[in-house]
């Protein structure tokens, strides 16, 4: 019954699969060749990283993926995009900067997005894709879906910390992710033989207790077979696989770059001779799968199609310049729950945020919390008390201490439809993952032209107090307020904390929710029901006619004390708490200055490039004619935070400082 073919070269795949793979290899190669032409003609305004020579990896890995499986890729991603199903014209149009490009002209060669077919993005930054694919796999697991995710990355990324953090997390939680290392021997111009202490990348999988497979990356059938097994494992809940595909790019790192300073002509020629397309062609012919004539017909057909794609893309329209402002933020967040009067029930600051978190977790089954000790322990600051018992470890995920890793995971999970809440304990720890926030999370909605939403809440304690020292006392609000795509909330009361936390969870955007550690135990009136406080809406905490004081977080409380002292002297302070610094409600501040004619900004943070500086600039620009005295700032001293109490208290404003500063301002 068993049909045997009397040839040693029998294909391990059926004829249709064999021809499909051949078509994909050719599509990638021929499209790349059109891009080379376009680049040489000056039609590509930016860089162009060719995939020529590595086609077998993308074609082999993606052959068995479904359209809802997700692919996260690297700066050399043209092949991955095409293999995942992107039309050549859309790829070419993107590199040409046209509105018909897959990223609608926002990306170019290194930033290809087409989430509609699971192309979740290629990235100009090394190794982030490893974390994002891990995150998408986490989201798939959370949604109990059979989706798998794939990270394509190079040998260079395998030496990056994200490789370790991502593979470790995927290994712990047995996530449905396939890590595909395209080992093309060079990280730009640095050889893996130099940069890898162990250049056998597949062997590193052992460190994470996952399978590591090395295959000839120029043999599409070998790649395909390895991928088939890895996909089967992933879909079957058996966890991740690392596949190292040994391959080579026969073009320079980027088009137009010199090539023979770090490798030889002989080496390039040798790899050109191992062309993956010619290799499969021979196999198809030798196995009798296809005839010469049939393959030539395919080649002619695809050659014509590739040329037509370039011609069509060249005639495509440019994007409208006015569209440049679209999709920095989510343009259709849900209606906020209306604000409520504070009422008489008192809870503390953290309990207020816990109520908001619990409420939204109940509504959204794809909301999960990541952090160190936020599971059974309930959070270092009781931020998740009781939730683990209700929702279990998948939704309250205790992480290894790898901030970059789990921020990147959160990014990928959000891209794949989940809603992560990342609990850092201390915001100082965020710095380890700064690049993932600024380069990935903040920019993702924009780069994808609004097709990826990024509802990521990043929370952590800030502020000076109780001798926490240099690594547990930073303020950081201004740092994050610099970047489009982010929102930054800095509440000062339990009431604001609950309302802003719920808004942060429901606004559809990434939010830095910064909680002053000296405030997390304060009590205050908080409604039991859900309500939201809009971002960019300052609170006038105290009315006064003589001088406006703007303060955030702890400084609001200090300023209130100072205002009582000053009131006894006949100076009436109007105190404004912006509550969010991105967006910043300058209108309320300027209205207040219009009334009082004087402004003191009290900011715990360092003065240079601070929120205080931003407010001063805004008032100078828009409230100049209302000023009766120069704007003054009272800011934290420009030194790292020291430990000893007398040292610590010497660098942060207190109520006495504020009283003196206001008196001085009144005499200006």
């Amino acid at each position, binding site marked *: 019954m068993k049909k045997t073919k009397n040839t040693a070269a029998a294909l391990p795949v059926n004829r249709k699969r064999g021809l499909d793979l051949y078509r994909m290899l050719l599509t990638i190669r021929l499209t790349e*060749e059109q891009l*080379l*032409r376009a*680049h*040489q*003609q*000056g*039609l590509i305004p*930016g*860089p162009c990283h060719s995939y020529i020579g590595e086609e077998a990896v993308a074609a082999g890995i993606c052959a068995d993926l479904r359209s809802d499986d997700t692919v996260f890729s690297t700066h050399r991603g043209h092949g991955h995009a095409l293999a995942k199903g992107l039309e050549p014209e859309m790829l070419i149009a993107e590199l*040409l900067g046209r509105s018909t490009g897959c990223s609608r002209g926002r990306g170019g060669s290194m930033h290809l997005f087409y989430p509609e077919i699971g192309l979740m993005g290629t990235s100009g930054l090394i190794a982030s894709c490893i974390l994002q694919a891990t995150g998408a796999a986490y989201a798939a697991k959370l949604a109990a879906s059979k989706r798998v995710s794939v990270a394509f990355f190079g040998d260079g990324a395998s030496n990056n910390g994200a490789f370790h953090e991502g593979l470790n997390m995927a290994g712990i939680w047995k996530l449905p992710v396939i890590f595909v290392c395209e080992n093309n021997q060079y990280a730009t111009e640095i050889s893996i033989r130099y940069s890898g202490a162990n250049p056998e990348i597949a062997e590193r999988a052992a460190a994470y207790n996952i399978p590591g497979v090395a295959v000839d990356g120029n043999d599409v059938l070998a790649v395909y077979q390895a991928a088939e097994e890895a996909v089967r494992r992933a879909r079957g809940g058996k966890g991740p696989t690392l596949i190292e595909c040994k391959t080579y790019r*026969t073009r320079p790192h980027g*088009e*137009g*770059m*010199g*090539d*023979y*300073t770090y490798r030889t*002509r002989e080496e390039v020629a040798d790899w*050109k001779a191992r062309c993956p397309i010619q290799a499969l062609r021979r196999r198809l012919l030798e196995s009798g799968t296809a005839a010469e004539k049939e393959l030539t017909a395919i080649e002619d057909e695809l050659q014509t199609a590739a040329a037509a794609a370039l*011609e069509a893309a*060249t*005639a495509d*329209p*440019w994007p409208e*310049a*006015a569209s*440049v*402002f679209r999709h920095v933020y989510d343009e259709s967040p849900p209606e906020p729950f209306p604000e409520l009067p504070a009422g008489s029930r008192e809870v503390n600051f953290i309990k207020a945020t816990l109520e908001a978190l619990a409420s939204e977790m109940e509504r959204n089954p794809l909301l999960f919390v990541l952090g160190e000790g936020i599971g059974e322990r309930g959070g270092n600051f009781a931020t998740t008390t009781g939730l683990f018992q209700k929702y279990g470890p998948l939704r309250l995920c205790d992480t290894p201490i790898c901030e970059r890793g789990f921020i990147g995971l959160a990014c990928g999970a959000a891209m794949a439809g989940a809603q992560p809440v990342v609990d850092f304990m201390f915001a100082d720890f965020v710095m380890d993952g700064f690049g993932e926030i600024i380069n990935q999370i903040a920019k993702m909605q924009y780069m994808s032209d609004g097709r990826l939403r990024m509802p990521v809440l990043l929370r952590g304690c800030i502020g000076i107090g109780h001798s926490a020292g240099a690594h547990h006392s930073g303020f950081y609000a201004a740092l994050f307020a610099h970047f489009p795509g982010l929102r930054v909330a800095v509440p000062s009361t339990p009431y604001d904390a609950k309302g802003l936390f719920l808004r942060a969870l429901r606004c559809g955007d990434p939010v830095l929710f910064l909680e002053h550690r000296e405030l997390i135990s304060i009590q205050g009136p908080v409604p039991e029901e859900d309500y939201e406080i809009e971002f960019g809406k300052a609170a006038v905490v105290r009315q006064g006619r003589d001088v406006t004081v703007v303060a955030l977080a702890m400084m609001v409380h200090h300023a209130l004390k100072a205002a009582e002292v000053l009131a006894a002297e006949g100076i009436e302070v109007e105190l404004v708490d912006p509550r969010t610094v991105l967006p910043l409600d300058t209108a309320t501040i300027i209205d207040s200055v219009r009334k009082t*004619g004087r402004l003191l900004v009290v900011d715990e943070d360092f003065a240079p490039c601070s929120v205080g500086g931003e407010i001063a*600039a805004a008032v*100078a*620009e*828009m409230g*100049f*004619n*209302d*000023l*009766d*005295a120069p704007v003054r700032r009272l800011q934290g001293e420009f030194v790292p935070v020291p430990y000893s109490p007398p040292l610590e208290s010497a660098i942060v404003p207190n109520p006495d400082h504020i009283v003196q500063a206001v008196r001085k301002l009144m*005499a*200006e």
Partner: protein
Amino acid sequence: MPIEITLPRQGWSMEKAAFVEWLKKDGETVSPGDPLFAVETDKAVQDIESLDAGILHIPPNGPQKDDIIHVGDVIGYLAEAGETVSFDKITGNWTADADTDNDEAQTASAPAVPEEPEKVSLSPAAPVTPPCREFPAVSPRAAGKALRAGIDLRTVTGSGADGRIREQDITAAPRSAASAPVTDRELPVSGLRRTIAERMVKSLNATAPVTLTATADVSKLVSLREQFKLSATPDEPAPAYHDFVIKLTAMTLAAYPMLNARWEESRIVMAGAINIGLAVDTEDGLLVPVVRNAASLTLRQLAISTRDLVDRARRRQLTPDELSGGTFTVSNLGALGIDAFTPIINHPECAILGLGRICREPAVADGQIVIRERMWLSLTFDHRIVDGAPAARFFDALRRRIENPVPGLTGW
């Protein structure tokens, strides 16, 4: 068709390169991926690989080592076997390092790149405020407040640090519109203005003016005019008050000719005719057209004449004749709410009558307080020509005629 071999763009900003050498020989077969020629850019010597296949045709006038070639320049051809190749497009002018980039290929079918993206929203630029050293330091808020209150900042002492003037200093400063810094503005003097000025000064310098004032009970005159108004039509409106007064004045002057005289050098000339000037306010200034022989005109003739004269005065259409020859002038400021004033004599006439407003006032009649219509009259006369008592007699006679107008108007 032979395939053109061009210099490809290698770097983002590369425009040209120095040719190094061909890496294939003329007539040799080239496959895609074969290194075809080498160039030296500002980065390094680079091999250019062929994207196409064919037999290489190197033109005799093609670039030699170190010749400068530009992106897009055709430097050779790939052709099929037996195909003929023309080198017409190859200029051979390689060393010229001019900006002759052949960039047509780049833009052949591409829509034009917008020169500059539309500027949609930029942060407002902070205005630059130069320091002002001539004035005291002042807060923007205080400066605005001072301006609105009309307070001269130079009169204010600042109480702020370094003497800066603050809002509270403005609040404490006395308000004085007179001391407000008002900017002067210069206007050219029109011919009419100059004439008026000269005549007024001349009048004041040459005459000895005295002004008498009296009030007239004009209830009957008002009642009379009401009757005219009732029968008025758009084509023929009722006579104005000045028409009544001109007629009555002319009649009175006939009995008091000294008031109709003029001073000439060392003699007094009694005018033969009674020609009454009427002061008319126009946009350009005061004009005084003259109603000739006013005493002999009927009220109707007089009203038509003054209406025509006033109308043409406002349009500056009067002839010099119509503006001269007056012997007495009437000036009416009643419509502008004036009671009494001191008219200036229209030199060389003897006198001028000023009419004030008519208003309803309580008056005593038959031991009762009644409401009467009252008008102020002001007479300025030249004391050189006539003394106070005769002038007062004339004035009183005129007042009586105005109070009881019907006999005079009907020529009784």
